[in-house]
């Protein structure tokens, strides 16, 4: 490749990078790709995928990164390309916008006077030098302080408002980059994990969601108590975990967390995410004596042999499981009767009718289980989150500048014509022209009223002779 061709290649590459066509193409590709990401479940287990897809489809989707699409290399590449395109386009345009700051057009040439729509003309008594001061003052009052340029026997006045709205779009573009930078910061220096803690127990590490490996914490956290409160309808009202942060063995903070009310300590936040029953503190069983036809309630703990009052029989609750084959909480029971081999069966809390099938003299049902809960906490460290919020505020500021402000400029020319002042007004606004027309009307009105009229019939269609 010759040097010339190479230069051609790079300059055309540069040109495509700062083309808006690329921006629109990238936005369309990202939008379409994102649709796929909402249709294909993300980060599910292989079993779930195999239930939905053929194995070959699953393999292809996996290779193409569609199963964790938003973190796949190609998706991140597209985001990076969009950022690069954003920077390139902004830099290219910024040079033009900056001219409004570095070289404001303070004077219009003759062609521009003719080209600007809605310019207004009228004449007034007195020489331009005499009318200058009142007009300058009037323009400052109704619009903004003008800059005065003196020409030969004539004056040009230039006033502008809202020129910063020209920069709004750069604030918006910058804000997108800031938000992405914040996200990047979070993904490099932060983590997201989960930990289940049983009441009374302590954890000093969390399982990371992405790599399923443990992330040690610099401190430990103890779950003092977990509680649920329900609405009368049975719907959950509040999940509350009381957490204590321990530095070594020393408790430093004790605070309840609820959904929407996390606890943050040393940049690490703990969120109430889930809960479950880990084991049983105490169970109250209802024991029906089939022979004596009477019932009694007996409290028991897991792993302790309990005698049934008034009999030689005893039972032992071996273990608790929160869900027995989809039928809800269950206790495993070992039942001892003299001169019999012991029996082993399950008691289901939600299905008391199954107690009739239990062997022997007694039918056991669960009256009450005093559960020992575990609380599932989401543990997050995200040092980038503040950067993201700053980006969001920047974006709002950018929208305000871009959509609500407009750069309005007014030029005034005072020339001498037969001992009178010939006044010409022109204006331009880069947004909301109808609104600006009204403003220009008001400015003209103000200036007309400022000085005495020479002739009654001076109209804006009038031309200098």
């Amino acid at each position: 490749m010759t040097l010339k061709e190479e230069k051609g290649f790079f300059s055309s590459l540069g040109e495509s990078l700062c083309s808006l066509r690329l921006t629109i193409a990238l936005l369309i590709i990202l939008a379409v790709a994102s649709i796929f990401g909402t249709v294909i479940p993300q980060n599910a287990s292989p079993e779930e995928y195999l239930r939905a897809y053929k194995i070959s489809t699953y393999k292809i989707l996996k290779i193409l990164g569609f199963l964790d699409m938003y973190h796949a290399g190609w998706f991140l590449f597209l985001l990076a390309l969009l950022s690069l395109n954003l920077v390139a386009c902004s830099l290219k345009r910024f040079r033009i916008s900056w001219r409004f700051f570095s070289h404001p057009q303070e004077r219009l040439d003759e062609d521009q006077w003719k080209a600007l729509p809605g310019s207004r003309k009228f004449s007034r008594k007195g020489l331009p030098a005499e009318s200058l001061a009142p007009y300058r003052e009037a323009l400052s009052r109704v619009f903004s302080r003008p800059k005065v340029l003196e020409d030969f026997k004539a004056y040009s006045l230039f006033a502008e408002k809202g020129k910063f709205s020209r920069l709004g779009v750069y604030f918006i573009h910058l804000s997108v980059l800031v938000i992405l930078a914040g996200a990047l910061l979070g993904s490099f220096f932060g983590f997201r994990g989960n930990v289940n803690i049983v009441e009374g127990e302590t954890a000093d590490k969390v399982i990371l969601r992405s790599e399923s490996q443990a992330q040690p914490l610099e401190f430990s956290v103890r779950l003092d108590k977990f509680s649920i409160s329900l609405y009368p309808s049975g719907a959950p009202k509040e999940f509350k975990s009381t957490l204590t942060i321990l530095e070594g063995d020393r408790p430093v903070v004790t605070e309840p967390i609820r959904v929407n009310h996390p606890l943050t300590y040393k940049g690490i936040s703990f969120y109430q995410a889930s809960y479950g029953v880990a084991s049983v503190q105490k169970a109250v069983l209802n024991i029906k004596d089939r022979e004596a036809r009477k019932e009694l309630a007996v409290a028991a703990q897991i792993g302790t042999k309990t005698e049934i009052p008034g009999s030689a029989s005893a039972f032992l609750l071996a273990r608790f499981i929160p869900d027995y084959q989809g039928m809800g909480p269950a206790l495993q029971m070992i039942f001892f009767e003299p001169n019999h081999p012991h029996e082993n069966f399950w008691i289901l809390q939600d299905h008391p009718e199954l107690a009739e099938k239990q062997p022997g003299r007694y039918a056991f049902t669960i009256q009450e289980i005093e559960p020992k809960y575990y609380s599932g906490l989401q543990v997050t460290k995200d040092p980038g989150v503040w950067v993201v919020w700053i980006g969001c505020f920047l974006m709002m500021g950018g929208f305000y500048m871009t959509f609500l402000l407009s750069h309005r400029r007014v030029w005034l020319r005072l020339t001498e014509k037969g001992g009178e002042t010939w006044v010409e007004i022109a204006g331009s606004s880069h947004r909301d022209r109808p609104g600006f027309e009204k403003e220009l009307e008001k400015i003209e009105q103000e200036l007309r009223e400022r000085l005495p009229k020479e002739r009654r019939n001076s109209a804006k269609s009038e031309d200098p002779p």
Partner: protein
Amino acid sequence: MISTKMLTTVTFLYLLCTVLYFNYLAFRSERLGKVAGGLSWITLVIHAAAILWRWVESYQLGIGHAPLSNMYESLVFFSWCIAFLYLLWEWKLQSRVLGAFAMPFAFLFIAYASLAPGVSDRIDPLIPALQSNWLHAHVITCFLSYSSFALSCAVSVMYLLKLRKKEKGQKEAGWMALFPSLDALDTLVYKTIVVGFPLLTIGIVTGAAWANYAWGSYWSWDPKETWSLITWFVYAIFLHARFAREWRGKRTAALSIIGFLAVIFTYFGVNYVLSGLHSYA
């Protein structure tokens, strides 16, 4: 409940407003236009009163939360926002021409709330995830933006209808005689998006801030979040195409309609077709 009965009445009133606005176009009668406009304001006030009354009723039930918490309540609020924004434009533009195209949206959404089988009008207590002050800021900004996009879509439809007549070289049908010029419609398509886009952005940002409190992550590529971003992309394309590539007319009108379809999918599609964290509305 009284509020539900009021809302049923409001539904029929919106239908009546729609019919009146259409007749206004068909008969070009200024008087019909005034009646349609007046009735719309009255309907809007009753609608607002019904929403406030539902709020009171939720306190009477001992539940006590703003009526913005489920599909029914959000549809009712969406419909109110559309009527409200439309009437603001009517007042600003001093023209009732858009009414026949904007009011059907207000009617359809509130009618869907009352009639769709899956949408319950019961007042339920708030589940823990929804117990947050972010709820109000998030829902209000989102629905105001959706409403502005609905208006933009309505104006785009008017634009395309008028353009088709013009391209075919046909004389304008009588009912189109009152339509503003193509340029004016095109500007309005743009202006309504300029209102909606920052509101959508605030809606997404407040949603992200809330998610950060509730779920410990401001962005988790949940289908609802992703679809709101897709919608944002579509309107971003619209603005760039118009600002920098000078797209006008047919193409931007089409983009505005695509954008509103994305809004509808974000709102309904995600709940009915896809599943995710955001299963309330």
